[in-house]
């Protein structure tokens, strides 16, 4: 990139999570944007602080000690623009996931059409559906009103009607919403997003405009029965999320002022970045970003020409853990643990961690519980998200994870750079990637910040991505295969840049690695046995081999088959999990 395209502005990016707030500085070094450093502090939305800007200032102060220059003035205000003495920054962007999940009511005409679209739209931000109103709803209008009053939703999303199509039925469904809003105290009225028949815009505004905290209109998510277009509504929903947070959480308005309105929901910003990567670098496979944080599990996937963003607050590793057993069982969680953990200990952990989301595992047993929970939560998130992927994407079997390259992992449990093997095994167990994929750990959680920075500076994300700010774990080779334990399923030869070779025979049920340093590209030639499939067809492999990139763990061969089946015998299963941990250098 020629230096002339870089205007030299420094950019501070802040992410406010449910547990942690992170301040990251990007600046120009030798004509290219670089990730400079980050500062971390506990988030402060909760009492006794009740002001997220406190945590942001603490994180910036920690960043200041790393970079050795001031970004805050003596009154703890942000110094902007940057000063001749080197203090300050030129711009700020913010992402946030902090706060209680938004209680949401979805309204649509038909279950398989507009309501489905409304549901998918809702899962693109941090929401929980508390009620659904549709044409099939047999409740009386007053029962709908009472339900709305009982739930006190933060948000109502209305879809329905193709453009120029039905309007009378939608109007009928708006009435209970208008009446319920009218009966609510002004400060409790929900925000309303209308993403249905565009002919209804004026009517929606006149019927409920004055009765909601704010009315937002976006293009129809179902302009015709056959077409779904969620992007514009997702964008609007991202803005509504920030507007609601400004009302709910002190300090967001100050950050809005400092950033000039450049605030986005964290997962939305990640999704934007994944879409960008798919456009810039995407091949026939999709690009996947998974984030497991205190607020939610987020899965952002981009394929050629389309993308999916799914946020699951119910699988977040913070305050929502108390309710995790509504979605899974203790046995399903504990099957992932290498240690013998009792159900009581798991229950105690879930409640204690939901009381104190910022706390971390200090003992081996606590870590085993926390990682077992993380695995099951991410596994459930991926299984749910997979159902939402388009049907015309590259995949080996419908019941397996589609082909992705690269896979980017972030969030505390996944991206601890000091233990890449631990994060990788968690990812392999829960996401169960298939085929050949580069795996990247976003150890500084930069992806959403880059997605947010793109709105202020579109060169910065590209240059930072290419600068090695992310940790490449290596290339995962995971054939889809079912075979007998220890049966050979693949013979591989890795040819290094200097021409030397290493060979490996992969046995079913094992995890093995071949070293390939970060930054080096090797050529992998392989022969597949027992009908194993890496995306080229059962037993088939390209004659010329495939290029693979190196990383902290080199080339990782996952011969455990897909879907991954754990032994039913607990003792044997725990031994096997320990073996897999050792294979990836995680003890």
């Amino acid at each position, binding site marked *: 990139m020629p230096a002339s395209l870089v205007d030299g502005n420094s950019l501070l990016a802040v992410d406010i999570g449910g547990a942690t707030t992170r301040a990251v500085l990007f600046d120009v070094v030798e004509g290219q944007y670089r990730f400079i450093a980050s500062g971390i*502090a*506990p988030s402060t*939305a*909760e*009492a*006794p*602080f*009740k002001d997220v800007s406190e945590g942001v200032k*603490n994180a910036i102060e920690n960043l200041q000690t790393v970079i050795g220059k001031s970004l805050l003035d003596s009154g703890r205000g942000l110094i902007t623009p940057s000063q001749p003495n080197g203090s300050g920054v030129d711009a700020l962007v913010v992402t946030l996931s902090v706060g*209680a999940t938004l209680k949401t009511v979805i309204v649509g005409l038909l279950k398989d059409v507009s309501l489905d679209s409304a549901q998918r739209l809702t899962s693109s931000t941090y929401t929980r559906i508390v009620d659904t109103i549709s044409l099939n709803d047999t409740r*009386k*209008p*007053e029962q709908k*009103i*009472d339900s709305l*009053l*009982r739930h006190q939703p933060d948000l109502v999303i209305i879809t329905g009607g193709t453009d120029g199509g039905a309007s009378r039925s939608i109007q009928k469904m708006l009435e209970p919403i208008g*009446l319920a809003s*009218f*009966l609510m*105290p002004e400060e*409790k009225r929900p925000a309303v997003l209308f993403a249905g028949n565009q002919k209804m815009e004026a009517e929606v505004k006149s019927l409920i405009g004055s009765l909601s905290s704010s009315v937002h209109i976006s293009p129809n998510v179902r302009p015709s029965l056959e077409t779904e277009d969620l992007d514009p509504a997702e964008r609007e929903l991202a803005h509504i999320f920030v507007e609601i947070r400004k009302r709910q959480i002190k300090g967001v308005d100050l950050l809005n002022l400092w950033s000039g309105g450049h605030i986005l929901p964290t997962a939305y910003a990640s999704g934007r970045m994944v879409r960008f990567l798919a456009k810039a670098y995407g091949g026939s496979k999709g690009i996947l970003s998974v984030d497991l944080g205190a607020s939610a599990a987020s899965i952002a996937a981009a394929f050629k020409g389309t993308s999916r963003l799914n946020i699951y607050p119910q699988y977040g590793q913070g*305050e929502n853990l108390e309710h995790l057993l509504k979605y899974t069982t203790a046995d399903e969680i504990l099957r992932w643990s290498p240690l013998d953990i009792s159900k*009581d200990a798991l*229950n*105690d952990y*879930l*409640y*204690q*961690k939901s*009381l*104190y989301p*910022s*706390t*971390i*595992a*200090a*003992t*081996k*047993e*606590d*870590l085993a519980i926390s990682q077992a929970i993380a695995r099951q939560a991410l596994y459930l998130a991926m299984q749910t998200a997979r159902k939402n992927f388009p049907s015309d994407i590259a995949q080996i079997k419908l019941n397996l994870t589609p082909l992705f390259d690269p896979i980017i992992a972030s969030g505390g449990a996944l991206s*601890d750079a*000091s*233990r890449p093997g*631990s994060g990788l095994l968690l990812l392999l167990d829960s996401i169960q990637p298939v085929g050949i994929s580069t795996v990247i750990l976003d150890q500084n959680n930069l992806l959403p910040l880059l997605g947010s920075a793109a709105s202020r500076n579109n060169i910065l994300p590209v240059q930072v991505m290419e600068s090695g700010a992310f940790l490449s774990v290596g290339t995962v080779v995971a054939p889809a295969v079912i075979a007998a334990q220890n049966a050979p399923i693949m013979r591989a030869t890795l040819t290094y840049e200097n021409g030397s070779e290493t060979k490996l025979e992969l046995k079913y049920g094992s995890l093995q690695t071949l070293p390939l340093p970060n930054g080096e590209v090797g050529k992998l030639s392989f022969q597949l046995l027992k009908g194993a499939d890496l995306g080229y067809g059962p037993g088939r492999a390209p004659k010329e081999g495939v290029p693979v990139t190196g990383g902290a763990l080199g080339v990782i061969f996952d011969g455990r088959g897909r879907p991954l089946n754990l032994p039913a015998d607990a003792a044997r299963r725990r031994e096997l999990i320990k073996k897999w941990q050792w294979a990836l250098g995680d*003890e």
Partner: protein
Amino acid sequence: MIAPVHHVVGLTSIVRERILPISGNLLVRQGQKVSATEVIAEAKLPREHTLIDVARALQISPTAAERLVRCKVGERLAAGTEIAKGKGLFANAIKVPREGTVVAVGGGQILLETSAAKVELKAGVPGTVIEVLPGRGAVVQAAGSLVQGVWGNDKIEIGALVNLMNAPDDTLTESKMDVSLRGSILLGGMIQNKEALRAAADLPARGLIVPSIAPALIALAREMPYPIVVTDGLGALPMNSAAYRLLTTNAKREAVINAESYNRYTGAKPEVIIPLPISSEPPPSPDAQTLAVGLQVRMLRPPALGALGVIEKMLPGLTVLPSGLHAPAAEIKLESNEIIIAPLVNLEVVG
């Protein structure tokens, strides 16, 4: 690092902002003395409505129906009251099916509120109203001993505190409760079975203060008619020594048990207050403090979950924990004299 403070303190000034969930009527004035269970504000929460569609019933247009409606917003109507009548010799009359209050009229429709729940806001602490928040609530100040908990079942009571614990790790069993404890607030041990909860209800007890409760009993504990404050956590945790000392030495005194749910955003916590006579207002305890050597802290996660200790040394940079994670940490000397290393995020100041 700044950490939140979990209050376990012998004498302090307690200031609590008490706010209704929705706007309502304030029932106290500034300077008024209140008891902990006194209602200081109330509001009406609509629960059930009936929608009467006059236009549809009379099969006329909404505009025509609107002209026939004879009730106004705010009017209280008895069941059977006629609210509209069609035109003609044998015109249909529309009557109210249930008693209710008219809350909206328009477009030929009438919305009646037929049932409402009364929300009562209690003072929560025995003290003086130092500020009124019109239509919303008040700020009440009190002085006394304060023990905060981590879980409560949203009830409040006043009563004499009776100690049933011989040690911080006692378990409360049905056999420890007899009729002589009726009307008391019981300082019991860990709750591990439903019989103990039911026995306290059968007495009936005025309240229960326990160190911990099995997670499986949470749903039942919510249903109990008396307030329950859990001081240390869920599972099988002994009571922290500071709370144990303070509560056992205040046995037989009148106590307020405010088992308000923990709300991480507002800072509301379940708490036990023992009102004490004072000659001058004691200083309030801070809600947050910077972690430093000498501070008393409580462990929020294993090892030594729930134990109290004192910060012996703040460790520089990042420390590798036994779990393998890296984090800023401190050396903590526990009451048992054992020294452990704990990440700072796992500590809560006690005081």
